[in-house]
């Protein structure tokens, strides 16, 4: 269980100057601060609109230390999968063509709209999803969807004790999840996958390595630090903490790790086996497409 109550002891020692999700703060509270007046700022969420970009730049200017909090700000997150589609196609589908859309007047969001009272504005919708570090300079990264409470607590304690590591670091262990997985000892000497199963298709044995059972667990490629929370819930790791420091492109490394395990020798067998992976981009870049080497799907 993920009790956040032990955070309260840490939270007692800080003064919030901006925390819109939990307290009544407004943007002008930030604007009225001097540059660097905020000691530490955590920003979550990927950057897709001009409003998000503006807040990121504003908070960056006002903060000594900026921490990208969560998979979205660190890697792009699940919203990053929007980088598989052109901007126009997204707007077209969501406001006009989608099967559940009822929009007889074909109203689409506009940045400026005249209404009887005057003119109202909406933020602009960028061409792609960016990570926080692709928008402003970021000092530390705390990935996770959501970040494990224990890592957040560790980060807060490091801040209060003046113990933060060198800038640019990810505030999580730099080793793959398999290392802390409770099922580690059940991993066979020669791990081979002869078919991929999705979690709803089998009754997974709660004590055996999930990869050995044909579930596509991304533990070998993913940073640990979460205490193998999903695996402990009998679900394969989906990669939310992103890669370790030795990996540049998470999806590429995942391809390497998973493909190595296939129990198939010739092209035909391999293709057939891989046919069970229904959505490679969604599986291998679920959280990290904007942070990847390709950044978005190539649209010619």
């Amino acid at each position, binding site marked *: 269980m993920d009790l956040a109550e032990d955070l309260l002891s840490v939270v007692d020692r800080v003064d919030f100057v901006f925390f819109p999700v939990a307290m009544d703060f407004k943007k002008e509270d930030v604007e*009225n*601060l001097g540059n660097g007046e905020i000691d530490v700022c955590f920003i979550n969420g990927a950057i897709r609109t001009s409003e998000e970009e503006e807040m990121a730049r504003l908070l960056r200017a006002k903060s000594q230390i900026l921490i990208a909090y969560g998979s979205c700000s660190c890697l792009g997150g699940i919203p990053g999968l929007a980088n598989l589609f052109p901007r126009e196609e997204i707007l077209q589908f969501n406001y006009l063509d989608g099967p559940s859309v009822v929009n007889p007047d074909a109203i689409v969001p506009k940045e400026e709209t005249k209404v009887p009272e005057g003119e109202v504005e909406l933020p602009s919708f960028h061409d792609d999803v960016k990570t926080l570090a*692709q928008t402003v300079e970021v000092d530390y990264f705390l990935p996770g969807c959501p970040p494990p409470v224990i890592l957040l607590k560790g980060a807060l304690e490091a801040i209060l004790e003046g113990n933060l590591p060198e800038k640019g670091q990810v505030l999580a262990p730099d080793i793959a999840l398999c290392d802390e997985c409770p099922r580690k000892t059940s991993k066979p000497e020669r791990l081979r996958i002869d078919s991929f199963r999705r979690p709803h298709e089998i009754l997974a044995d709660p004590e055996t390595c999930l990869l050995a059972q044909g579930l596509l667990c991304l533990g070998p490629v993913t940073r640990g630090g979460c205490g193998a929370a999903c695996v402990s819930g009998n679900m394969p790791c989906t990669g939310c903490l992103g890669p370790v420091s030795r990996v540049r492109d998470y999806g590429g490394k995942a*391809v390497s790790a998973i493909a190595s395990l296939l129990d198939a020798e010739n*092209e035909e067998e391999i293709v057939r086996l891989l046919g069970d992976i229904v959505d490679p*981009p969604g599986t291998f870049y679920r959280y990290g497409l904007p942070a990847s*080497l390709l950044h978005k*799907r190539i649209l010619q």
Partner: protein
Amino acid sequence: MSDHSGPQGHASFEPRIVAFFCNWCTYTAADLAGTSRLRYPPNVRVVRIMCSGRFDPQFALSAFRDGADGVLIGGCHPGDCHYQEGNHKALRRFILLRMLAKQLGIEEERLRLEWIAASEGEKVQRVIAEMTEQVRRLGPLRLAPIPAPVERVGQLQEVGRAR
């Protein structure tokens, strides 16, 4: 850089292909092609790896990010790998990589895996010539740039309303 500006299929476009050749077979075959004075297009940049099993899909993605239009992997024939099964791993990784890359908008012809034995200098010549032409027809690979952060706003400059 300027040789990349031609429209798709235009004769002025010179594809840039990065090749990862295994030391024992394919790289040796490429040497043989050289000593035999076999002529082939100069569009391939060869990187020698000890085994095709060393090929990490990140190499291909990194090559594309750095301007490659195609990536070629050369290894020993199955059964002949100097390290027993490295080439088998390479095949599995290559197929999944190509599948994933295709869904990310990279045409299949930009990624190629060939088994080329040490004696097959002529195969090196043929494969490079073929792939160069295929990629030339596809045109340059245009990746979206990776956004760079705006510079850190200077400490002296107040942003927003001053207090």
